[in-house]
């Protein structure tokens, strides 16, 4: 019925959302209006003709005034008195650093220009991230310039200076030096040796103090389970690259689970196919809501939160039986017996090459997961508990502290980097407990929900303003190196701890001392002095330590603050835990001068008896008061809400819902159809105790008996941007299964859903095939639709040039820029989108403007759904004209495909043809250039763009017109000085980072080279991508990675049939063969056949493909440049 049939004989349908699947009239209307809604005045009213003329008049008058008085104001140039050596005006400098409170980001590479930090990326030399990052890491530069940060210390609600604050703390805590009354320090898990030592120094002056770490509950549960099964409360290090088979129970490891950037980087090489690597890992996801990870999986089973425990236990039992396990596994009844059998078969075939994980906070479930991995021999392969991540608290200390605070046994508390009054299932208890405490001190960056309850607020610096350190995984230590002095009267936490300990010392010197004592002896890479090691570590941003542990010897060793207490909740387990050989941990201790002994690690061993005990731990009580189960999840953009005041994250669409600035109650289309709920209907959700109101959205892939709500919203004290966006779902959290009811309020809410802003009118812009098809024919699913679009000379013979009404471009110079994006490598995480926003000074337009479809993202990630093999109606049957509820079957459990979409830099660009003033023209280097100062804002170009990637400045967004009321003067410090800030009335779009191309050309000239090679210039999106899915480079260079990639048979150009000839290629998505998937009907209920060919287990990944798999990270060295160097104190 449309052009798709030609491209996809199987006529797979791709739909942008339920609205398109149903062919809603609103979607149809999108085709008529490029900008969705007609132009409006500031207050949202439509513009009348007379108003328009009035506006025109004043605009001209304003132009007349400014152009008239031409003598520009006198501008002064004020040079340095003494120029710092590392700063040359206009020259960028790169510094390796890390965020000590977000070790899961890994090492970072921060860019400073003229002494001002303007960009943060992953450190390309950091092995786990390989230079990749996530959206939150990218956006963290904006937090530095957040106007709502605390700008000075405060005591009793009054702003004060540090001297007075330190005195106030000393007075308040004086009683705790001697008395039996106890002081507690609450932080997230600390990983850096010096960071821990600073805290230890403070604690040693308060002998009765204790340190409690609270973390994301998932980390706590995994650590606690390993406390039972392996005798060490630690989150292990996972390596998805080593896994041929991945089974995940509700763990969103590509989006929000533990360290998604690392996991994405490990996972994707196993999902990309090439001649050298013709296999793919198999990924099974059992989950309630459709997560980012579920969107990438091969087999997806919809389960209810309440079904996970039994399913995991049943699988554990089945694997135990298959492997002849002597220990006992609890009996479990699950409706998914067929899946359990099929997965066991698969797992057994992939012994030692699998990974099984869970997102459950139920320790018993995690223990069962450990048992499965242990029996399959996955420990020591894809899961490494010896070289794991930090030693987490196991949750028992936090629970005990809450009790003690309530009872008054502890009545003084110091909090740093945590916000339990908001982000905790016990938020209310925490609130009461902190209010009850006599002394409450917060080391905080803002007056958040927790800090605002405290008596004393020690304003803490941003991580780019102060020194610190971290050890994200054991044996990989990094220094947090500041790029700038604190913008406000704030102080680094290490200084704060040391001052309060009565040992004030320079942060950097203190860290160097601790490193000399505790880190230097653990490394074997640098021979020579400590100074040499320190300089190298600071420069590289990483010190790789030998896998040996350190014990601080001598009786002087202070009690380790976070030494794990017996983990078990029952006596037998506790006794056994003590008896079991404990693995020595590299805990930091204060007495820096104490003698140090190195010992080789004792490997953690599986302990069957304790595993049995752990699996018997009863789950938290389930609430029964409701018809629907509630799945709480973190949105990939806003996460746990720590960075809720960051407008770049609020405006980043959630990868699946594509919603900005709000959280929603997600409901499956089937359930919504039954409950007569439509998109945007505000519903009242209640569990009997708490009631919140949220707009509803139909989410394909969600379980029919569950609803899902994102945490991280509804903050009340995040700041001017993040307050009161969405609703806070934390009060529902109990740790157990949650049941809720909902009812319609009759109110309709406006939503900023970016996916349905443009329309492709059902044109298939994504291409995919299956592994078997691809093996038969590498061009499978990728027909050449451009072949007949080549022109002929006057004799009718092909002239090798594309058909065009204009003289074709020759691109015969040195460069022609282009990109290749592998659809197999895109997880949809959105890191590139934020990186692009920050690199290119793309404004945040605010909630109301997104509602008017005026988002400015140059690069967006389109999300399409398509049917699964088991869906009904069968492929090809559906014709966009919904008959009754026919479409519901397609939306039950769809497949998802992501496609980054930006300006395609077409050779035959629609926009260039219609611009009346030649503001957008093609350059000889193949870029579709945009001269902002020439643009008069007709918007014809956007109308004529086939890809819907042009963005119009309806207002003076960079100055804050129309958007939120944040501090724009401060925020403007984050602007990239190399990119023009666009003003009202101007069109803009992706420039393929032309400023970086130009800067690189100047740079190689300085180095005496003539031609740019791969790695000399990288686009911002390419830099950010954790999976190396974007390759940018010179198409005219036969050796460039981009040139090789575009000649891959999988490469195609979007909508190539319309002869636009883009400079961006995509590579066909290859999925597992449909006959690898379980057959049968709706995967929601048990009883359908699942079969495994078992062939997959035979495939093995080439060991050496790890580095090669992602071309994106090869240019790391050059990127570092000369400026990436150490920075003195």
């Amino acid at each position: 019925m449309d052009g798709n049939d030609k491209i996809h004989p199987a006529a797979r349908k791709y739909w942008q959302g339920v609205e398109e699947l149903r062919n809603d009239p609103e979607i149809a209307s999108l085709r008529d209006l490029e900008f969705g809604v007609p132009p409006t005045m500031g207050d949202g009213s439509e513009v009348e003709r007379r108003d328009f003329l009035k506006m025109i008049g004043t605009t001209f008058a304003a132009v007349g005034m400014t152009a008239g008085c031409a003598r520009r104001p006198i501008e002064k140039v004020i040079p340095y008195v003494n120029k710092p050596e590392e700063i040359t005006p206009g020259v960028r400098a790169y510094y390796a650093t890390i965020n000590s409170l977000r070790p899961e980001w890994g090492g970072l590479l921060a860019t400073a220009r003229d002494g001002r930090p303007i960009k943060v990326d992953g450190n390309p030399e950091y092995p786990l991230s390989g230079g990749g990052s996530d959206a939150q890491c990218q956006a963290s530069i904006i937090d530095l310039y957040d106007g709502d940060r605390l700008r000075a210390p405060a005591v009793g609600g009054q702003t004060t200076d540090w001297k007075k604050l330190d005195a106030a703390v000393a007075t308040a805590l004086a009683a705790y030096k001697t008395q039996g009354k106890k002081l507690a320090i609450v932080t997230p898990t600390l990983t850096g040796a010096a960071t821990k030592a600073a805290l230890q120094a403070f604690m040693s002056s308060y002998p009765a103090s204790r340190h409690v770490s609270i973390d994301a509950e998932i980390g706590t549960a995994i650590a606690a389970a390993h406390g039972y099964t392996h005798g060490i409360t630690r989150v292990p290090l996972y390596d998805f690259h080593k896994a041929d088979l991945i089974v995940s129970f509700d763990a969103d490891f590509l989006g929000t689970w533990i360290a998604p950037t690392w996991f994405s980087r490990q996972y994707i090489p196993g999902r990309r196919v090439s001649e050298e690597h013709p296999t793919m890992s198999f990924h099974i996801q059992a989950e309630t809501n459709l997560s980012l990870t579920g969107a990438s999986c091969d087999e997806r089973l919809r389960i209810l939160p309440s079904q996970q425990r039994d399913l995991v236990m049943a699988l554990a039992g089945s694997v135990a039986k298959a492997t002849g396990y002597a220990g006992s596994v609890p009996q479990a009844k699950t409706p998914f017996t067929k899946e359990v059998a099929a997965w066991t078969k698969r797992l057994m075939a992939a012994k030692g090459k699998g990974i099984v994980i869970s997102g459950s906070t139920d320790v018993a479930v995690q223990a069962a997961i450990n048992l499965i991995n242990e029996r399959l021999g996955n420990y020591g392969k894809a899961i490494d508990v010896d070289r794991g991540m930090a030693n987490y608290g196991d949750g028992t200390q936090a629970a005990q502290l809450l009790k003690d605070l309530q009872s008054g046994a502890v009545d003084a508390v110091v909090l740093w980097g945590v916000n339990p009054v908001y982000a905790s299932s016990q938020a209310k208890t925490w609130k009461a407990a902190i209010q009850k405490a006599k002394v409450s001190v917060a080391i905080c960056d803002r007056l958040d929900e927790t800090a605002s309850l405290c008596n004393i607020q020690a304003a803490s610096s941003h991580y780019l303003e102060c020194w610190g350190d971290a050890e994200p995984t054991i044996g990989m230590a990094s220094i947090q190196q500041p790029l700038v002095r604190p913008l406000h009267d704030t102080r680094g936490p290490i200084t704060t701890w040391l001052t309060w300990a009565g040992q004030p010392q320079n942060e950097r010197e203190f860290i160097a001392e601790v490193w000399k004592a505790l880190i230097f002896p653990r490394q074997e890479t640098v021979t020579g002095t400590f100074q040499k090691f320190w300089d190298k570590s600071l420069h590289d941003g990483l010190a790789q330590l030998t896998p040996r542990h350190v014990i601080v010897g001598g009786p002087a060793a202070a009690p380790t603050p976070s030494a794990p207490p017996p983990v078990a909740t029952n006596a037998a387990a506790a006794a056994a835990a003590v008896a079991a050989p404990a693995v020595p941990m590299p805990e930091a201790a204060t007495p820096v001068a104490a003698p140090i002994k190195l010992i080789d690690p004792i490997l953690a061993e599986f302990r069957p008896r304790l595993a049995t005990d752990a699996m018997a731990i009863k789950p938290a009580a389930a609430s029964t008061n409701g018809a629907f189960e509630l799945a709480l999840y973190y949105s990939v953009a806003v996460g746990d809400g720590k960075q809720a005041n960051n407008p770049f994250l609020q405006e980043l669409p959630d990868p699946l819902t594509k919603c900005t600035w709000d959280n929603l109650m997600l409901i499956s289309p089937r359930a919504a159809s039954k409950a007569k709920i439509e998109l945007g209907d505000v519903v009242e959700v209640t569990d009997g105790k708490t009631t919140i109101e949220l707009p509803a959205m139909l989410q394909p892939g969600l379980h029919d008996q569950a609803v899902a709500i994102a945490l991280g919203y509804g903050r009340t004290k995040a700041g001017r941007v993040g307050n009161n966006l969405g609703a806070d779902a934390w009060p529902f959290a109990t740790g157990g299964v949650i049941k809720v009811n909902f009812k319609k309020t009759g109110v309709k809410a406006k939503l900023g859903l970016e996916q349905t802003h443009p329309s492709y009118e059902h044109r298939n812009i994504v291409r995919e095939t299956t592994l078997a098809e691809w093996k038969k024919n590498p061009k499978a699913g990728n027909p050449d639709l451009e072949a007949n679009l080549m022109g002929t000379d006057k004799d009718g013979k092909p002239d090798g040039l594309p058909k065009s009404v204009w003289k074709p471009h020759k691109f015969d110079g040195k460069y022609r820029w282009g990109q290749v994006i592998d659809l197999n490598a895109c997880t949809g995480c959105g890191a590139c989108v934020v990186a692009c926003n920050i690199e290119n000074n793309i404004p945040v337009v605010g909630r109301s403007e997104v509602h008017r479809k005026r988002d400015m993202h140059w690069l967006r990630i389109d999300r399409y759904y398509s049917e699964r093999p088991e869906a009904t109606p069968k492929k090809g049957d559906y014709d966009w004209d919904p008959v009754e509820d026919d479409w519901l079957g397609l939306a039950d459990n769809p497949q998802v495909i992501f496609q980054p979409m930006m300006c395609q830099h077409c050779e035959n660009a629609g926009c260039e043809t219609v611009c009346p003033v030649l503001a957008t023209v093609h350059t000889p280097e193949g870029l579709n250039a945009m001269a902002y100062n020439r643009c008069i804002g007709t918007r014809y170009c956007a109308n004529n763009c086939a890809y819907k990637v042009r963005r119009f400045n309806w207002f003076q967004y960079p100055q804050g017109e129309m958007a939120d009321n944040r501090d724009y003067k401060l925020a403007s410090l984050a602007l990239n000085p190399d990119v023009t800030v666009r003003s009202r009335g101007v069109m803009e779009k992706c420039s393929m980072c032309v400023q970086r191309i130009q800067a690189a050309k100047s740079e190689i000239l300085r180095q005496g080279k003539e031609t740019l090679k791969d790695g000399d210039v990288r686009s911002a999106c390419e830099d950010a991508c954790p999976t190396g899915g974007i390759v940018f480079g010179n198409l005219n260079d036969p050796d460039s990675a981009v040139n090789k990639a575009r000649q891959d048979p999988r490469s195609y150009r979007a909508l190539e049939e319309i002869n636009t000839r883009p400079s961006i290629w995509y590579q066909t998505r290859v999925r597992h063969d449909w006959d690898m998937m379980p057959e049968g009907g709706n995967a929601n209920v048990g009883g359908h056949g699942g079969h495994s060919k078992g062939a997959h287990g035979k495939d093995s990944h080439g060991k050496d493909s790890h580095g090669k798999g992602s071309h994106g990270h090869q240019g790391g060295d050059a990127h570092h440049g000369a400026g990436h160097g150490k920075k003195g104190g």
Partner: protein
Amino acid sequence: MKCASLVVPLLPLAVLMVFSTGCDQVPNQIPSYHKGYQPVQPINYSHRLHAGELGIECKYCHFGAEKGKHAGIPPVNVCMNCHRLVKPNSPEIKKIHQAYNSGKSIEWIRIHKLPDFVAFDHSRHVNRGVASQTCHGQIQEMEVVKQANTLAMGWCVNCHRDYKNNPPDHLKDKKLNPSIDCGSCHH
């Protein structure tokens, strides 16, 4: 009536345009092209003496010119390299000493300024061998610096275009291909 609504708001524009031409302080120039602009600087510094007579290399003070976008105004410590000893008692040099000792820098008046939507890279030109004088005029003869050229786009583009037919002597052998793409300067 319909016509009136269009004309009335435009009236102030016409009035302003009449006034505007008289506003420019630089005579005989198109407004906003500041050729000839020669403000009085806080220190009576002579390029004729330093660059001309003494022959100090431009890049000694404007060291940024070969490193990055901005040539830069020399920081006070660069002046002090010589003037710690040279003529320390001259009233003008005393201003440098005062700035250096007080830590309060000298506030020079900016002469050459391109609009914010233009990206000009000094290093690109300097490292290609384009002489300072090409854009800044015979600076070694100027007692007080003045803007020698319009620095307007047409002026830039002419040079870039002329290179092929009429390259300056010292750049003849380099076979350059100076760009006239919009995107080279406007991004």
